[in-house]
């Protein structure tokens, strides 16, 4: 049966769909949950169908049921002692703020590094009598950008990321600095190695396509290689790692180690094409990805604290994403400016 041609009235008249909505048949529930997650474009028809079934069954609609449930939860909250008043939301907020502190610290570090680099390059260039002009490009949450470098290389810079690069490459190398995540498509020039510095890691390439992810505050830096070959060196480690295509290396600051592994290009590079992929993601992961991609803050005021959400969205707006998630989790949401509250 081709359900993708179904309209609300078809769904609402379908025996298996009704069993799914009323939760009377586990097999139907499993089937429809999966089907609906793969057809987000049918969501409006599905919601109308559920509304119809609710109406004829004399059930409350989901929005109303959620409202009543919240009324009950409010009542429970009011009757309980204050010491129990913790929820996932406050936990999440503290995490966010500690991450922000981490971010500021690393911004300061980057500034210091930049200053030193500046001075170093100045000394070097003073001799050459041609000052190098450095530029920086910075993206807030929810913004991606593409930067063209003077040598013809292209950098796709992810949200929450900053790239420092010279206006014109001079000297024997092409060096830049990154915090956050970026995808590099490097113009081939074996005479002038292309070097990306991220914290304690240096990635050197001759001409290649690769993704560097060094989120500030995160203890891990990853370099994933799509094409060509790159050389990775960690400051405090002797020796280098040479990556081959489809390999990635993870640098852990904690153990000061480099680990090579295979990577799923689709997942690692999803951000570049505006694709969102969740794999059994916790609420924190979902919230962080949505903040990164759309710059919206997601709060969880629902009773559901343990999440395991899987789904994939291609170039979707954030309401489509949130609608689908809420649907799968049987939750509702409200929008307040750039904050979305799940209820």
């Amino acid at each position, binding site marked *: 049966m081709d359900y993708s041609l179904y309209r*609300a*009235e*078809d769904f*609402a*008249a379908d*025996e298996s769909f*009704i069993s799914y909505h*009323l939760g009377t048949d586990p097999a139907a529930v499993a089937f429809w949950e999966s089907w609906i997650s793969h057809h987000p474009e049918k969501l*409006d028809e599905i*919601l*109308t169908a559920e*509304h*119809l*079934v609710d*109406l*004829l*069954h*004399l*059930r*409350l609609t989901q929005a*109303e*049921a959620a409202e*009543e*449930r919240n*009324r*009950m*939860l409010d*009542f*429970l909250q009011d*009757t*309980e002692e204050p010491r129990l008043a913790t929820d996932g939301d406050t936990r999440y907020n503290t995490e966010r703020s500690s991450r922000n502190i981490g971010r500021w610290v690393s911004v300061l570090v980057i500034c210091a590094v930049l200053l030193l680099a500046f001075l170093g390059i100045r000394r070097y260039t003073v001799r050459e009598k041609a000052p190098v002009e450095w530029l920086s490009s910075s993206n807030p949450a929810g913004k991606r950008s593409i930067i063209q470098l003077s040598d013809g290389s292209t950098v796709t810079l992810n949200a929450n990321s900053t790239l420092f690069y010279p206006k014109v490459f001079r000297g024997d190398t092409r060096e830049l600095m990154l915090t956050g995540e970026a995808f590099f498509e490097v113009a081939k020039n074996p005479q002038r190695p292309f070097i990306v510095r991220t914290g304690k890691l240096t990635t050197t390439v001759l001409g290649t396509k690769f993704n560097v992810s060094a989120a500030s505050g995160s203890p891990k830096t990853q370099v994933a290689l799509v094409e060509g070959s790159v050389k990775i060196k960690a400051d405090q480690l002797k020796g280098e790692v040479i990556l081959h295509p489809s390999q990635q290396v993870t640098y852990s600051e904690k153990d000061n180690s480099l680990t090579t592994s295979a990577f799923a290009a689709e997942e690692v590079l999803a951000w570049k094409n505006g694709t969102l992929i969740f794999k059994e993601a916790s609420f924190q992961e979902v919230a962080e990805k949505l903040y990164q991609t759309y710059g919206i803050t997601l709060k969880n005021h629902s*009773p559901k604290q343990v999440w395991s959400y899987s789904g994939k969205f291609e170039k979707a*707006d*954030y*309401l489509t994403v949130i609608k689908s998630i809420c649907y799968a989790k049987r939750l509702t949401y409200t*929008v307040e*400016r*750039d904050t979305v509250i799940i209820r």
Partner: protein
Amino acid sequence: MDTEIWEKIRQGDKDAFMQLYQGQYQQLFTFGCRVHANRELVKDCIHEMFCEIWNGRQNVQQVSNSRAYLFTYLKRKILKELQKVGSPQHALAPEQLEQHTHELSYEDLLIGSQADEEVRAKLQKVLQKLTKTQLEVIRLKYYESLSYEEVATALQIQPRTAYNQVYEALKLLRKYMRVIVLLGVGAQDFFQKFFL
């Protein structure tokens, strides 16, 4: 299993309490509407009932059948509420009330279960457009939760006919639904314009 959940509630386990609430809510609402077709009143009664249960959780006697316990509780509560309201049409003895309820048609129940006056008027109009068979078929299919096979047997028609009747009725009802759904979509566009 039922006794287990009540034991947890007695000990103040909120998750167990909400589990009971979630598990029973819709059935309680449907049942409540059968007792008295007034959406808001039924919602309030269910809410108050659960509040009372939570507040008095330490004194709840052994409950072996949650459903039966809650249904009886709710019915008493609604009937009490109706006596309290005291308007002439409501000032009936409980037995009379029950009889009165059983005379309500599915149509009346559907309309009565809607809170908004405008929505009620619209729904009434749409329901008038349905044929007697269509109404009977959707009543058996949804309200009585029969399968198409069972509906067909009850009305001595083909299952395919039963399905077609339901489908036609839904198509008409959808038109009425569209008003509500459009309202929702409009609000969303509004948000997108302002926040994207």
